[in-house]
């Protein structure tokens, strides 16, 4: 493969042959091609900020978890200075994996092969038999440290990048930050994971999951129809379910320069049902009190109200971001689930870790605010497990779909078929929408997912 601004695959196909920027089509081949996969690991996962976990997973000095940045295993550890460090989980001596555990606590990571030892921050301490200097004298101890990634903590979320001199994390978030703050930065105490993440393997290309994560609204109507047949969105009184999720498809969709996107689904119907009043007649505060954001209680609202601008609060009470993605491979859900005991919020984060062109690992964290009352945390967690992740009644349909797309992408004819993103917003922002970014109003469209591919293309065509 030639690695230029328009890379050429070994059969002569150019990147530009795989994506049609005018007609908004992407060839199926992209969903399984091994050469493209290698290039993605360098040009996407080697360049962007990658979501790895939450700082509450490693609360104490020396705590660590093993995670993946693209195709590389990394150690995410809390150092002696209480900072979070991310280092390549590979010994610079002979390439053995430093930690083969998933989680633990240690002040010294010792490679079991030849005994080289490293601090949680990746610094090389030394090799056994110090006086014999097993590591030689050609390189300094500093040069023999674990390869260190650049780390950013945002609302407790841990991101890292190998692009040491590249854009800052805030630049990477861009216009998405205005909205993401209303999810991750709602309380003074911050959020916490309710336990370690669920992990499972799907025989599918990482992009099948990730292009969907960029706010695919349409699939909910069909793939998740059970939600309205027997699930939580079954309308009261409708015989045999009804199976129509159309009302859930309306709202605002936001897409930003670096392909972080979100579906801001309207709460008006829920608020009308809860209060018996017209949302237009209620103040922002009254609406938030009637239906606090996921994980918050009425008692927690005064603190939240202090933290945000009137514009942000307006969105939080009207059309809050409920599902969306962090480019390249993170998904978030802040959903309001109707239950017999009222509306319960569920907050989850996924990473879709690439494990080769035809395999991904689905990692699912469930979160709450630290200040969420324990009883509510327990309810949110159980509901999260029932709907999302490994056994989740919603997401088991997604994970069964992606392998078929990946297999189809190998057919001589079907690899030339295109994925189409041609449902476009033609209207402007909804009246009075105060948030930044590109904004579409009304019934869900393809613009968010198309933005995902546009940015994929931008990064894949960048030579350095």
């Amino acid at each position, binding site marked *: 493969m030639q690695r230029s601004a328009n890379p050429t695959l070994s059969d002569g196909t150019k990147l530009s042959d795989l994506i049609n920027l005018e007609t908004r089509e992407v060839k199926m081949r992209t969903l399984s091609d091994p050469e493209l996969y290698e290039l993605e690991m360098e040009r996407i996962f080697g360049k962007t900020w990658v979501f790895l976990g939450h700082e509450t997973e490693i609360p104490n000095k020396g705590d660590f978890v093993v995670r993946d940045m693209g195709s590389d295993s990394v150690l995410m550890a809390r150092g002696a200075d209480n900072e979070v460090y991310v280092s390549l989980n590979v010994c610079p001596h002979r390439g053995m994996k430093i930690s083969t555990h998933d989680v633990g606590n240690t002040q010294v990571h010792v490679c079991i092969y030849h005994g080289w030892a490293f601090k949680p921050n990746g610094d090389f301490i030394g090799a056994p038999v110090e006086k014999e200097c097993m590591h030689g004298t050609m390189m300094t101890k500093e040069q023999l440290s674990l390869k260190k990634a650049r780390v950013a903590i945002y609302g407790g979320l841990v991101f890292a990048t190998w692009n040491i001199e590249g854009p800052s994390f805030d630049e990477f978030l861009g216009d998405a930050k205005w909205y993401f703050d209303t999810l991750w930065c709602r309380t003074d105490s911050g959020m916490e994971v309710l*336990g*370690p993440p669920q*992990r499972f393997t799907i025989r599918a290309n990482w992009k099948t999951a990730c292009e969907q994560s960029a706010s695919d609204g349409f699939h909910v109507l069909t793939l998740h129809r059970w939600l309205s047949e*027997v699930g939580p969105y079954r309308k009261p009184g409708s015989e045999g379910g009804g199976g129509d999720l159309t009302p859930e498809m309306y709202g605002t969709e936001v897409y930003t320069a670096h392909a972080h996107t979100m579906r801001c689904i309207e709460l008006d119907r829920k608020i009308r049902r809860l209060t018996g009043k017209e949302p237009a007649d209620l103040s922002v505060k009254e609406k938030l009190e009637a239906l606090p954001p996921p994980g918050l209680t009425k008692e927690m609202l005064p603190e939240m109200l202090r933290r945000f601008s009137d514009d942000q609060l307006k969105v939080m009470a009207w059309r809050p971001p409920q599902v969306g993605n962090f480019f390249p491979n993170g998904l978030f859900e802040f959903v309001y689930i109707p239950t017999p005991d009222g509306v319960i919020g569920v907050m989850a984060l996924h990473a879709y870790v690439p494990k080769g062109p035809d395999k991904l690992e689905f990692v699912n964290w469930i979160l709450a605010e630290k200040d969420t009352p324990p009883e509510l945390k*327990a309810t949110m967690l159980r509901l999260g*497990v029932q709907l999302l992740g*490994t056994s989740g009644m919603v997401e*088991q*349909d997604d994970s069964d779909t992606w392998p078929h797309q990946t297999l189809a992408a190998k057919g001589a004819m079907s690899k030339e078929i295109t994925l189409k993103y041609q449902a476009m917003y033609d209207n402007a922002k909804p009246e009075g929408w105060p948030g930044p970014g590109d904004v579409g109003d009304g019934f869900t469209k393809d613009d968010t997912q198309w933005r995902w591919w546009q940015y994929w293309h931008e990064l894949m065509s960048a030579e350095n």
Partner: protein
Amino acid sequence: MLQKLLEPTPLPPSFKANRVRAGDSLYNEILDFLYDEAEMLDNLRLSEWAELITKDLEYNAPLRHTRTTTQFAQTYSRNVQHLHENYGSMMMRVKRITDTKSAWGEDPPSRIKRLVSNVRVFKTDKENEFKVESYLLLTRSRFDFDYFDLIPCVRHDILRREGSELKLARREILLDQVVIGTPNLGIIL
């Protein structure tokens, strides 16, 4: 506090003195229960299976971690789990399959064999409740794929006698895999 809310009711210990020997009529009855349950689930008779569970069901599958030998006991996580169910949520899972036409994760259904073995039965402090440990090797064949997804696990059950019937009151599923090797646990273990 949260941990306390999430922890399942502790299982009674597996004391040797409480062991019900293989071949005992109670042991045989329990073995029949497990075999019948496996056959029922393999053949998608989920509504019948739903008759076998008690209203106070606890049905859990903890997460697993790779840790050192000395930390073997800490390899299970019981806050976030793969399955964390009660009677109501299990019934929702059953209804999703039986009462909708869009449970795509299991429609068309997988072909599954639940191979049950290594069954050990223990009496408990409650006269009508028995602790049952069993190994389960579940093989799952999906679509026209030429491989099987394998789900090996140990199950720790509490079976309760209600009238003349045995019912499943509690199940904890201890999976071998840290990263589950099947696209979902949309099946009953």
